[in-house]
């Protein structure tokens, strides 16, 4: 199944790296969307169906945690799996995010193999579900 993926990060460099990494990883991609913060991401989601969200946490205007909380309030959007890609290292924060529905956490810096394995785990679970 080719995926529509939304990349949410305030760094254009990081978004470019993730796009490149996704290309190297071999994950089948249909559409790639980008947003520079949580508010832009919600605007994208208003017009486009997305199968997977890759999101940073520390962003201006609307950060990742606030975005995740807003998505969890929408009956449809809350079903979109979210993988957080961040410098965050706190297990306390990671567990808090998972309790809000985040499916996986990838810490920066990451390798293509890590992204591929995590996405395959998530999308494999989606296919079975």
């Amino acid at each position, binding site marked *: 199944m080719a995926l529509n993926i939304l990349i949410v990060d305030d760094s*254009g*460099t990081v978004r470019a790296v993730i796009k490149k990494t996704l290309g190297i990883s071999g994950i089948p991609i249909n559409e790639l969307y980008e947003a520079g913060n949580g508010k832009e991401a919600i605007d994208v989601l208003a017009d486009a169906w997305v199968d997977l969200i890759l999101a940073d946490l520390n962003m201006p205007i609307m950060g990742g945690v606030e975005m995740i909380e807003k998505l969890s309030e929408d009956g449809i959007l809350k079903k979109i799996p979210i993988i957080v890609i961040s*410098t965050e290292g706190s297990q*306390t924060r990671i567990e808090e995010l998972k309790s809000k529905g985040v499916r996986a956490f990838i*810490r920066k810096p990451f390798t293509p193999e890590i992204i591929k394995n995590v996405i395959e785990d998530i999308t494999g679970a989606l296919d079975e579900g």
Partner: protein
Amino acid sequence: MKADNQEVLSDVFIEIAGKFAFMFGEKVGQDELPDADDDDLIRAHLDFKGQLTGTLDIAVPIMMCRELAGNVLGLADEELTPDASKDAIKELLNVTCGNLLTALAGEEAVFEVCAPEAAVITVTDWKDMSGNEDTLFFNVDENPVLLRLSIESGEDQ
């Protein structure tokens, strides 16, 4: 800055420079630092708060930022956008800080890390930062790098 914090900062930065930027870095003495007097210079800065509260700054030649961006993005210099260099040094600082705070405070500590900012600086600014007792010096692929961690609260006295 406490000597053990300096060592942690140095180790984390060198590791991140390698893994994130594919650049080889080593901590050097100020007298061993490659010359920066003729370079255009940039400094990135961020604030963090939590169990430890403080700031992290990095200063490098702008040409190193272009090399950094090219390495990270896998692009030749002529393919880089004007914002890519500044973005790359901000992200290097961001990733260094996240890993540093975990190394200093442990995996249970929660931090708020503000978005980094970057701006061009003068040779005078570079010399001022070089003169700060908390500043560490690195040679990263023959580029001079200044790195300064300032902890304002939360550190054991």
